[in-house]
């Protein structure tokens, strides 16, 4: 098997996912049933903001699990993409959410969200 060809195929799948959806969360488990505390935390933040997002369960696909790490050059899961841009992992998303910068990013990208009550 040619590894380079395989990787470019996986990258194509990832590129398609993040270009055809506004918000994509690569996570362990699903948004309904997260299987890792860090993934759950990011999914909760997105839910709190009332955001409609696509979740990709990396536990279901080893190629994506490794592929997304190589693609983003980021060693851990979860990974959040907004409008095709890598936003960060769990710690960064949490920090950005608490400081309000995540909300500013959403606004700048024209994505409607629910303000904190």
């Amino acid at each position, binding site marked *: 098997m040619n590894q380079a060809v395989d990787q470019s195929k996986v990258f194509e799948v990832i590129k398609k996912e993040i270009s055809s959806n506004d918000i994509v969360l690569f996570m362990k488990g699903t948004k309904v049933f997260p299987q890792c505390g860090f993934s759950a935390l990011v999914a909760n933040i997105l839910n709190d903001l009332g955001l409609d997002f696509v979740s990709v369960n990396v536990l279901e696909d080893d190629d994506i699990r490794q592929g997304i790490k190589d693609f983003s050059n*980021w060693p851990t899961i979860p990974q959040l993409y907004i409008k095709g841009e890598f*936003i960060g992992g*769990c710690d960064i998303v949490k920090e950005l959410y608490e400081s309000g910068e995540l909300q500013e990013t959403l606004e700048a990208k024209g994505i409607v969200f629910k303000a904190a009550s």
Partner: protein
Amino acid sequence: MAMSAQDIHDLILASLPNATVKIIDLAGDNNHFRAEVTCSSFAGQSKVSQHKMVYDAIGSKMGNELHALSLKTSDK
């Protein structure tokens, strides 16, 4: 193989010699750590870049020997 807090501390410091590094073992299991890294080299870098600099210091052990490393970075 788990890593010790000292290993993580030393790896980060080897790459970022001017950093102040604090490692906290979150679960007491040598597997879930939090690193607080303050380094003037972070100035002007995005959070993603700052975290990448720490991940690069730890190298391929991240996500393998080391399951979880919560990061907090600051330039001062």
